[in-house]
Every structure is written in C-alpha cells, then in structure tokens.
C-alpha cells in the first residue's frame, strides 16, 4: 500500500514538475547537446543516435542529402515531434517532451524550410509577434482592453524594438507592407528577424539560402555572422549550398539515412570519403 502511495506521489510530483517546466539540469559546456536523439515513424528510423554538441557562439552546420533527416532533427529540437529515443539539453537543461511554445520560451527559435510567415500581417507586426513573450513587454489582457498607460508604453517600445531588428536586415522600409508581398529573399530574412525577436539562445535556420541568388547569399553570410557577433548567438543551420556552408560554419554534422555520417571541423568532415560517396553516389 505504501508503495502504491509512493508511486502516486512520484507521478504527481513528476506531473507538477512537468507543468512548472522544471527540468533535469546537467553540467554542460555546450549550448546544445543531444544524446542519442532519435525518432521512428512506424518502422522508419528517420533519425537515430544523433549526437550533436554545439559550443557557445558557434555556427554549426547540419548537412546531408535529401531525406537524410535534417529537418526531422529541427522538428525534434523544437518540439514539433517528440523524440522516441534519446534526449537533448539546452545549456544543460533537458527540454525533451516540452511543447513547441515552451521550447521557444526556453530559448530555441527556428525558421522554416517552406517559409511560414504571418502573411496577412505587416512586416513589423510579424516581428512584434516574435517579441510577444519578452518579459520586457509584459502586459496582460485586461490592461490592453482597458487601455491603461502600460499598454501604450509596451506597444510603443515593442514597435521600436521591432524596427531596430528590421534595420539589421534592411527591411525597415518594407515594414508596413504585408509579409506575403515581399520578394522571396526578403521573406527569408524576415523569418530570421522574427525568430531573433523571441530572444533565443540558439537559432535554428532551415535552408536560409534556399532560393536566393548569389548576391543575396553573400549578403546573408554577412548577416548571419553579424547576428552571431552582436547578439551573442549560437546558430545551427541546414543548408545544401556547400560554398555557403564551408564559408560560414565552424563545425558540421553530416547526416545520411537518419544517422551521423561524419562530424567535426567543416573542412575535414567535408573531405571524408563517406561524405563524398553519399553526395556523389557510387
């Protein structure tokens, strides 16, 4: 009987901890550390035993052929999918099993491969949605409905912050256009700006250079470096453009069929014969 009560107590405690988002903490020198992270869909092992360790202020690349499981890793890290094995830590805090919203609030922000902007909203408002959970801009529903001074203050500072962010991406002049009316390259940039607005510790970029012309890509490299340096940011990105990856990433992990093929320093990993084989075939 006592055992039964204990088990119930344990269950309740676990639930309460889950609710309060208090997670197991470990000592970790890494911003992101995944341990044997994996997921299976039915019988298909979309990702397995993925171990990625990203140090602070690193730009880390995740590459691999089509269908290697790169976006799946992103979906695992952002809570879209729940991992079926392994776990991951952000600055030593376990985030496995949390919902997308909470993971974002804990400090992982992402962009999407197929752009997902709030199309019927203006550019500046898109960024302001990103600022929503910032503790600086706390303002509950009642304050907004009653239009207390705090509401106006928050709105004003929020807008200003959004404009500042847009300035970095040269989008300030577009701020009152609808997001869907932006050209493709600018939409990608806006997505990064919006993700950055959530004040993350780790930024996940899913093919940020896809569909950009060489000039825009070059521009993007500068912007990403700027973000790393000025926002004290750690970045994990997926990209197919090898020139882009080798010019930008400090370290990479190469995935194929959901497993890690090679990892480490960009140059070394890219010259790994296994990697070349996976890419060129043979």
């Amino acid at each position, binding site marked *: 009987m006592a055992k039964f009560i204990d088990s119930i107590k344990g269950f309740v405690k676990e639930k309460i901890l889950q609710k309060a988002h208090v997670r197991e903490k470990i000592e970790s020198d890494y911003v992101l550390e995944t341990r044997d992270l994996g997921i299976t869909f039915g019988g298909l092992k979309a990702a397995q035993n993925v171990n990625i360790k990203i140090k602070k202020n690193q730009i880390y690349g995740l590459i691999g052929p089509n269908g290697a499981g790169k*976006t799946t890793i992103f*979906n695992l890290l952002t809570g*879209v999918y729940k991992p079926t094995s392994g776990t991951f830590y952000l600055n030593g805090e376990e985030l496995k099993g949390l919902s997308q919203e909470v993971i974002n609030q804990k400090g992982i922000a992402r962009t*999407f491969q*197929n752009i997902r902007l709030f199309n019927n909203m203006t550019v500046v408002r898109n960024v302001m949605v990103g600022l929503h959970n910032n503790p600086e801009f706390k303002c509950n529903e009642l304050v907004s409905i009653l239009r207390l001074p705090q509401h106006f203050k928050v709105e004003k500072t929020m807008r200003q912050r959004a404009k500042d962010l847009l300035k970095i991406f040269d989008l300030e002049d577009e701020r009152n256009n609808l997001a869907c009316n932006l050209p493709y390259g600018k939409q990608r940039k806006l997505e990064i700006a919006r993700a950055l607005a959530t004040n993350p510790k780790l930024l996940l970029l899913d093919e940020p250079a896809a569909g950009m012309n060489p000039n825009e890509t070059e521009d993007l490299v500068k912007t990403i470096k700027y973000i790393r340096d000025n926002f004290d940011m750690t970045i994990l990105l997926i990209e197919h453009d090898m020139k882009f990856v080798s010019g930008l990433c400090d370290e990479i992990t190469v995935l194929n069929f959901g497993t890690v093929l090679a990892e480490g320093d960009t140059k070394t990993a890219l010259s790994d014969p296994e990697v070349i084989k996976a890419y060129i075939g043979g």
Partner: protein
Amino acid sequence: MDFLITLVNGLSLGGIYAMIALGYTMVYGIAKMLNFAHGDIIMVGGYTILLFIPVNPVLAIVAAIVFCVIVGITVEKFAYKPLRGASPLAVLITAIGVSTLLQSLAQVIFGSAPKIQQINLGALQLGELKIEISTIITLVCSVIVMLALHLFVKYTKVGRAMVAVSEDKGAAQLMGINVNFIIMITFAIGSALAAIAGLFYFLKVQTMTTTFGALPGIKAFTAAVIGGIGSIPGAMVGGLLLGVVESICLSIPAISAYTDAIEFSILIIILLVKPTGLLGKKRREKV
C-alpha cells in the same frame, strides 16, 4: 425481442442517414465543400414523389431521381462552379443561400401547409416480431445502393477518377482527368442518393413540409463527420451507427426527448477521441 425490432428500425433509419451522408461525404471529398443545400435536395425529391405517386409509384421514384439530379447539377453549375478556387467559407455561405432558396421556392410552389399522404405497405409478422414492410425495403435498398456505389467507385473508370480527384485535384488534372466533369458526376450521384433517401424518409414520416430535408440533412451531416468526412465507408458506418443510436434512444422513454442531444454528444466525444472521425484520414501539416 423488442430490442431486435429497435435494431432493425435503427438500421433502416441508419440506411437513410447513410445514403444522405454519402452525398455529403462525396461532395466534400471531391469539391472540398460542405454542401449545406444537400438536405434540401431530399425535400425536392420528396415533393416530386408526392406529385407523381398518384400516377404511378415507380414513375414517382424515377421522376424524383431525375429531377433531383437535374436540380443538383444546376445548383452546382450556377452557384458553386463560379466559386471554384474561392475561399471555402464563401462556398459555404452560397450553399446556405441555395438551401434557403430551394426551401422558399418550394414554399412558393407548394404553399407552407404540410402535406400528408398516407402510404401503408403493411407489416410483416415473423412469429412475435412485427416489422413494417417499408422498414425492410428501406434496409434492403440502402444496402444495395451502398454496395453498388462501392463497386462503382472501386471498379469503374469514373469511380477511380473520383478517388484520384479527391486525393489531389491538381495531379488528377495533370493526368488528363476532367475535374469539372467528375465534380458534376459527384453532385449527380449525391443528388440521386438524396432522392432515394427522400423516398424512404417520406415513407417513414408521411408528411411533407418545406423543411422536410433539414432534420435528416443535419443528422446525416453528423453521421458523415462521425465516420470521417470524405470517407465513403465512413459515411456508411456513421449513418448506420447514428440510426441505431437514435432508434435505441427513442425506444427508452426516459431519454427519448434528449435523443438529438445524445446523438450530438456522441459526435463530440468521437471527435475528441479521433479528431478526424472513425475512418477519416489522418492529415498532418508538414513542417
């Protein structure tokens, strides 16, 4: 024994619901719209039967089917086709408009007083069991109709084209399928089923009003959603299930007044457990 009668009655009512639900579900699967005017096609069928039944019962059924198909295709052509590619909400509102239009047209033509026509086909005595013949006919016919539809969809060219269009309209078009024609056929089949359902429902209630189709329409819509809207077997299962539940509820005096509420509660519970209905396809947005 009583329970057996209840069950047979329920299955027969469920057959009617299933036939109407098939119309909803096929149109939804292929044109991706909720055809709120579907219930009123039943009403059109009912009035046609009422008009022709003094002449000849068989002629009445044929006339009802033909007329309903004509009305269905006309509605599709003039009200829904111009809106293809527009927002589903706009189509939904148009369907609501068509529903009101058909009802008020019927009111203009037939007046608002209910018309009663007694049709008694007698009852069958099987030992202690006494079952209305109309119930048996309904049950048998609905099973035949559903089987025929199943075979049609599975084994004919047009049927397979319908499945293809419901999977992916664009790809079907690229494969040389005339999507407009398929949608028209879908509406025609749905309307024909509604006409047959109208006949059986009329046999059951024997009273004709302009809102004749509203109640079975909404019940069948519920049935279609319970089974998973867009799924043909789902509509059949949902219809039969709803019919049996209704029949059982009505047979228990304590809860008979709450039949509708119970049915709708079952719908909500099923959807909460299985958000796309019993046999609906799981669809997930790709991230």
